[in-house]
């Protein structure tokens, strides 16, 4: 059960050639993938490994304060990869958190990869749960597996996947281990091949009542909105940015553009680089 670190033969086979680094050739792409995660978990290293770009990496939290964008092609599908600033939460206390949250919420990526540190999983999962409140399309990349191995830490990704309700993939971005599996999982989550059932934190009954009252109202105003529950939680918390987004129609625009199948709002957001 705990033996999850083995690499499958497929990873070392020449099928790796299916990944093509596209660097900054971003004019045409089919899907948008966001990279979120705590500071210093290797998001930029993963970003560089996939895109072939040279986003500056460094071993200190808070190195990436803006988002970087690049592209890769996998099995004929072109992905735009957005490297978000590392954050411990999405409560939007500082600018970097705001950048990360707004992109996941308003940028509507087709899939959000939360990069976690295998050696400090407990601390990292907070963010995973927060991201899963916003979107179901999540893949958890359990990075730094080599470091975990050296420290004698074993991560059971199957148990993790089951509990979280989204796929968890062990990787070592530095050496490229597990990237092939990660890419095919991202692709499967986007196409719906893998159905995700993101875990939602319940809280006290009193809390649940307040959340459900409010989210029902939100769903009434915005039929088909995917993250009414998260908006309700943020509003109850008095989040000024979310209040503003509701009042100035940003949320309405997000919902209506999602329902237009021909125009992908995320694409527009990504192309214009709007936050």
């Amino acid at each position: 059960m705990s033996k999850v670190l083995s690499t499958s033969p497929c990873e070392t086979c020449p099928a790796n050639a299916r990944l093509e680094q596209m660097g900054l050739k971003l004019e045409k792409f089919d899907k948008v993938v966001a990279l979120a995660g705590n500071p210093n978990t290797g998001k930029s290293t993963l970003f560089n490994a996939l895109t072939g770009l040279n986003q500056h990496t460094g071993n200190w939290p808070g190195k990436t304060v803006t988002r970087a964008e690049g592209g890769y092609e996998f099995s004929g599908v072109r992905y735009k990869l957005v490297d978000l600033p590392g954050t411990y939460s999405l409560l939007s206390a500082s600018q970097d958190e705001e950048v990360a949250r707004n992109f996941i919420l308003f940028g509507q990526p087709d899939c959000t990869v939360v990069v976690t540190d295998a050696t400090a999983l407990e601390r990292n999962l907070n963010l995973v749960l927060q991201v899963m409140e916003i979107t179901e399309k999540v893949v958890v990349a359990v990075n730094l597996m080599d470091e975990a191995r050296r420290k004698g830490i074993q991560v059971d990704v199957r148990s993790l996947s089951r509990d979280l309700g989204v796929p968890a993939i062990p990787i070592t971005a530095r050496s490229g281990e597990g990237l092939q599996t990660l890419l095919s999982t991202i692709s499967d989550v986007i196409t719906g091949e893998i159905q995700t059932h993101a875990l939602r934190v319940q809280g006290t009954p009193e809390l649940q009542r307040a959340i459900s009252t409010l989210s029902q109202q939100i769903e009434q105003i915005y039929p088909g909105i995917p993250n009414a529950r998260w908006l309700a939680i943020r509003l109850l918390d008095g989040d000024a940015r979310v209040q503003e987004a509701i009042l100035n129609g940003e949320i309405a625009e997000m919902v209506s553009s999602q329902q237009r199948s021909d125009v992908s709002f995320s694409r527009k957001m990504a192309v214009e680089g709007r936050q």
Partner: protein
Amino acid sequence: MNSTLTPQDIIDQADALRPQLSSGFRDEMVKSLYAEVERITQRAVQVGSQKKYDLDQRIDRLVTSPIFGLPLMLLLLAGVFWVTIVGANAPSALLAKGLFFLEDQAAALFTQWGIPWWITGFLWHGVYRGLAWVISVMLPPMAIFFPIFTILEDLGYLPRVAFNLDFLFKRAGAHGKQSLTMAMGFGCNAAGVVATRVIDSPRERLIAILTNNFVPCNGRFPTLIMLATIFVAAAFPPAFASFAAAGAVVGVVLVGVFFTLLVSWGLSKTVLKGEASAFTLELPPYRRPNIGRILYTSFIDRTVFVLWRALLTAAPAGAVIWILANINVGGLSLAQHAADFLNPFGVLLGLDGVILLAYIIAIPANEIVVPTMMMVYMGVGMMTDPPDMNTLRTLLVDGHGWTMLTAVNLMLFSLLHNPCATTIMTIYKETKSYKWTTLSVVITLGLAFLVTFLTATIVRLF
């Protein structure tokens, strides 16, 4: 379905529901979140032996110890400068020799071909000489300093520095993460200003932005290193010279940290009043640096970037100096007139007119003040041959009356003076305010004048 519901109703509803929740909403949410996370982690993670972890902790106990932390940091910094100084000396001299030999040959060839003297002069003694100076003065130190700095960054040493310095910043009413942004400032002040985004509080972020310029950036380090090498080191016996030079550069950095703290304290007591806010800082595990990545970052991202930027300014600066030096009004060149005009003020600051003129010409990228200064000296005929580093000192002292005071004050001036044009633009972009941008220039330039004036006055009194 209630069709009369509006977005405002939702906000009102949330406001009405919020007080009904007991013991604070956020606490409830966070508590459930943590409980859930703990449950999942317990099932998925098994911790075996912790050998490696112990080693990390033992290193950390030493590196961040209240007694050894700071001295170790200074020792490390001095070591890095020493390696840079010792290593850069010979290649610098060699590069200067080679590049200026090329200038002579090319100029001679141009003359032979019958090309008018002013084209030869403008191209080779103006533009080319500017480029040659910048390359020979700046390239070798950068090629040594950047990889070492990048290794420290990749290892995970920077957050430890922030940890060690936190208590100082707290006392100055500033944010502990300010030292992280300062560390980025060592690379480039514009990057340091952008890095202040990690600071949550707008007040403390502004303090960090306004004081970032007090850490000498990579562009200014070669200047400091060169001055320390040819002046400070020369005052010591040869065996200690390189150590003295490294010590002098560390001294300048410490003066920079001192002014960072002083100005932060001053700001937090006046225009940016407030208490230092608490924060958590994660000390990441030490990681083995990736050699390929380090080489790429230090050479392509840093060395080539800084050098290219310096060259872009040095070429036109060289051209301007050549023109100023070759247009004569009343028997004296324009450069001489300007230098004479600025001289009284320069002397007051322990500098001279030529240095101030160089500073003004190099304003777009004031890290090239020293190369510009050399060009002005040559342009106004104070140096006939481009000298190598070893004879530079004799020429400056004998030919132009430089003293230790001139060298020390030039180091201080280059540490404190206003940010370069790129950094000023970045400050405006980050603050969106003319007021704070102006203040960032006024504070630094004011301090540069004040401090050099004071040292000059005090030295002259004794």
